[in-house]
């Protein structure tokens, strides 16, 4: 007669659901990933107010030295020689999609004359709205 049945405990960590968790994480990353069309390194101006920029906006970046890169929002940005080319670029974007927003990603220390020419080109191309890309201002700065 057996008095006690053997109580064998499984000592391994249960990993059956690990793949499910991993695939959930993959789906999360795939849905939230934002492919950056412009990787130009600039020191952005800091503002208290910031609004969400629509997806697939066209990007125009201006570095501290005044170098300009443009992207219609679907491809990686390319350098352009000057503001004259910004006008033709913006005109083609507006002709394709009149409501598309433009994002101005300019260095906070760039002399305003460079930005002025870009804004003027956008006005002439009849762009509707520009987003001035910015970082959140900290409390100390405010």
């Amino acid at each position: 007669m057996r008095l006690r049945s053997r109580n064998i405990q499984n000592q391994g960590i249960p990993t059956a659901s690990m793949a499910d968790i991993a695939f959930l994480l993959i789906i999360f990353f795939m849905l939230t990933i934002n492919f950056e069309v412009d990787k130009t390194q600039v020191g952005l101006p800091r503002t208290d107010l910031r609004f969400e920029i629509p997806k697939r906006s066209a990007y125009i970046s201006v570095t501290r030295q005044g170098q300009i890169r443009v992207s219609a929002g679907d491809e990686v940005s390319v350098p352009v020689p000057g503001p004259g080319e910004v006008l033709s670029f913006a005109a083609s974007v507006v002709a394709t999609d009149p409501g598309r927003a433009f994002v101005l990603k300019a260095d906070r220390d760039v002399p305003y004359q460079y930005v002025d020419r870009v804004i003027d080109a956008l006005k002439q191309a009849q762009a509707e709205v520009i987003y001035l890309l910015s970082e959140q201002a900290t409390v100390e700065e405010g």
Partner: protein
Amino acid sequence: MKFSRSRVDDEIPTASMADIAFLLIVYFMLTSTFAATRGLDFALPEEQEDTPLVDKEESVLIEIRPGGQLIVDGSPMPLDGVLDYLKPKLERNPAKPVIIRPDPNAEYGYMVAVFDELRQAPEKIGLEVRNVSIPTQREIDMFWY
């Protein structure tokens, strides 16, 4: 004579699925960038032949000098004093035009700071600055008088 039974496993091997999945996670974590996707919106006016011209005397002119010094209607003023200066004018005329005119050599960041301050008027003084314009140099050369 004994024949050994050859059993074929009829299950799909899933042991390495977690490894593949975690490799994909690592890929997404490394390639996803926390890009700045926020900014200040600025609606551009339509260029029309019959656009009404604003008289300089009817508007508030904010000039921005290199280094960030502000000259408001001809007088130096700190950034946090601009809205207090505008408040009585906006109470009399809610559509009072405000013109931001940065010096060509002024840093762009100061223009954004002034625009940000004007956009915060509803929270700070309870009035909205509805009519903000930032004329370009070409427009100034064409229309400024």
